[in-house]
């Protein structure tokens, strides 16, 4: 397993901060009524997207979930066009036709957030099939949650990926809840990784709050995929700091504030910054500057979105067909 260089550490850090600040501000915008529709925020789970995506290039494919902003940001998504999409503007990545739940960018290899839980894994298998068909060393990573691991689509995809030895990586972001239902009430197992052996692939668990742990394990899985040895199921134990939809984190009836506080003590960005400071890779002051800089970018993105035109009603029927 490759240990991350300083450059990689800073890159992972930047990806995490970009997600955190974007999501926090997006949440504010939604609460202010500026972003319509449902917003599923990724705050708390940043280490997973950042740790995995640090290994990928634009030519590698990912499928995402309804909680998809973080994946797109980590894959290189730009704030202006992302906010424009969330605001339903013509300048958004999806020209205002997708919104939060379908945000995508094919040029960055991002096959979309997806409003259907569990729909992504079979599509990622198709993308992996594609890269193998063309003899490239590209991979496809499917992000999904503990909830999605109960969908038949996940099981069909896992079986096919292992059967064809496809360069696919199934990254389960186990945040302990399928929407509002605790994991103990939706599956009889706690480790989704246990399911891997049933399909003939390795299943691995890592601390999803530890970006380096994710980076190392994802690196091993991706290397395995690139060298033609087939898929891996990588389960990252993580936690959603905000609600299933929207922001409100505390005072929710389906989980306790104590539980949230326990997880927040292991905030992936705080833990990472503490260690980067210790290592002399990034001082506290410099980290704070990065947060500020990203916040500026986020604000510029929001401004871009707010000043962007709404879609022309004439475009309603465009792109139903190619």
């Amino acid at each position, binding site marked *: 397993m490759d240990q991350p260089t300083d450059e990689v550490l800073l890159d992972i850090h930047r990806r995490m901060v970009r997600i955190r600040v974007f999501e926090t501000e997006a949440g504010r915008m939604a609460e202010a009524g500026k972003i319509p529709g449902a917003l599923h925020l990724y705050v708390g789970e940043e280490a997973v997207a950042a740790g995995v995506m640090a290994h990928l290039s634009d030519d590698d494919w990912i499928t995402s979930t309804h909680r998809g902003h973080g994946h797109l940001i980590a894959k290189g998504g730009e704030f202006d066009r992302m906010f424009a999409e969330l605001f339903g503007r013509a300048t958004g990545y999806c020209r205002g036709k997708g919104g939060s739940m379908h945000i995508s960018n094919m040029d960055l290899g991002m096959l979309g957030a997806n409003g259907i839980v569990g729909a992504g894994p079979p599509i990622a298998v198709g993308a992996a099939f594609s890269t193998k068909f063309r003899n490239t060393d590209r991979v496809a990573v499917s992000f999904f949650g503990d909830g999605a691991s109960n969908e038949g689509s996940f099981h069909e995809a896992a079986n096919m990926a292992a059967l064809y030895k496809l360069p696919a990586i199934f990254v389960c972001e186990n945040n302990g809840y399928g929407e509002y239902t605790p994991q103990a009430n939706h599956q009889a197992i706690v480790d989704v990784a246990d399911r891997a052996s049933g399909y003939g692939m*390795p299943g691995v668990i890592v601390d999803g709050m530890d970006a*380096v742990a994710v980076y190392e394990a994802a690196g091993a899985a991706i290397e395995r995929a690139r060298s033609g040895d087939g898929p891996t199921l990588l389960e990252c134990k993580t936690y959603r700091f905000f609600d299933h939809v929207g922001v409100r984190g505390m005072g929710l009836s389906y989980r306790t504030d104590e539980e949230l506080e326990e997880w927040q003590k292991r905030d992936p960005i705080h833990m990472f910054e503490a260690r980067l400071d210790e290592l002399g890779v990034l001082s506290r002051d410099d980290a704070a500057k990065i947060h500020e800089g990203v916040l500026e970018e986020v604000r510029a993105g929001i401004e871009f979105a707010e000043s962007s035109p709404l879609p022309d009603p004439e475009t309603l029927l465009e792109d139903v067909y190619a």
Partner: protein
Amino acid sequence: MRQGRTDTGTHLGVIGLVANPASGKDVRRVTARASVFDNQEKSAMVRRCLVGIRAFASAPIRYMPDPHHVARSAVDELRLAAEPLDIAIDANVGDTVRAARELRGAAAVIVLGGDGTNRAFAKGWLDAPLIALSTGTNNAFPTMQEATTAGAAAGVLATRELPLAAVARQAKAIHVDIDGEDPDLALIDAVFTRDRFVGARALDDPSRLVAAFLTRADPAGVGMTSVGGFVHPLSAAEDAALTVEFDASAPHGVNAALAPGRFERIGISKLRLLNFDDAIRWTGPGALAFDGERERILKVGQTATLTAARDGPWVVDVAKVLSHAVCRRPFTNA
């Protein structure tokens, strides 16, 4: 279930059961194709242990609760009167440490897990009478053995009719003092590496190894014990420790099983056999791995001082227990 019990249970010792749900699932499943051990199998092992225990003793059984219900599901299935330990469960290694503390004084404890689980247990109760059942391929301390008869041995030990020294051997332990921080412990090996993070924990890059401190060097083992074993075998019985210093560019080296399914050439620059009184010091920066997993970070200038002693767990020999028991009282049906 009445099959020639050895006692009625009135003055029996407690039998502890600790099954670590998190063992056997780390990144070595990918990097080295280590075995996969799911929780269904662990639960099945607990069930087999319970059947073994109950075949020979009605001793009180206390088990470590866990969010996966690895032990509880087996207990429920058998409708046994076994009690969970009254400990806080955080679904991390602290659970095992707390369970060990709570079990102090038990006649025998069956631990299902790997080196890491046994190490955690030892942190809570260093010289416990342990029956360590391995749940994976990457282990030096616990061994692969059948849970049913391991349970039976625990049942026999609960009668306290056998002196522990006759059927168990006390293991060595490595004591690690770290400047300004809580001390730590390892059972088989402590390794100093150039890693900057604990990360995904596995030790798999020989080029980052700095030094190792071993209580056991077994060429038939896997992991650091294999590395030491190919240089200078050291048995569990010898009152000594071994320290090895690594250098990838050193002319001397060994080809050793650094992980299951993986042989690596490891350059060795120095080797020293140590007495129990000898201490060695490692100075940061770097990472400390204990029994195969990166666990702690040493900051710049921070030192770790390591010594070995024979004050670790009493490792129960299941075969010896059962054969002693047979000699003393044939297991004839009532």
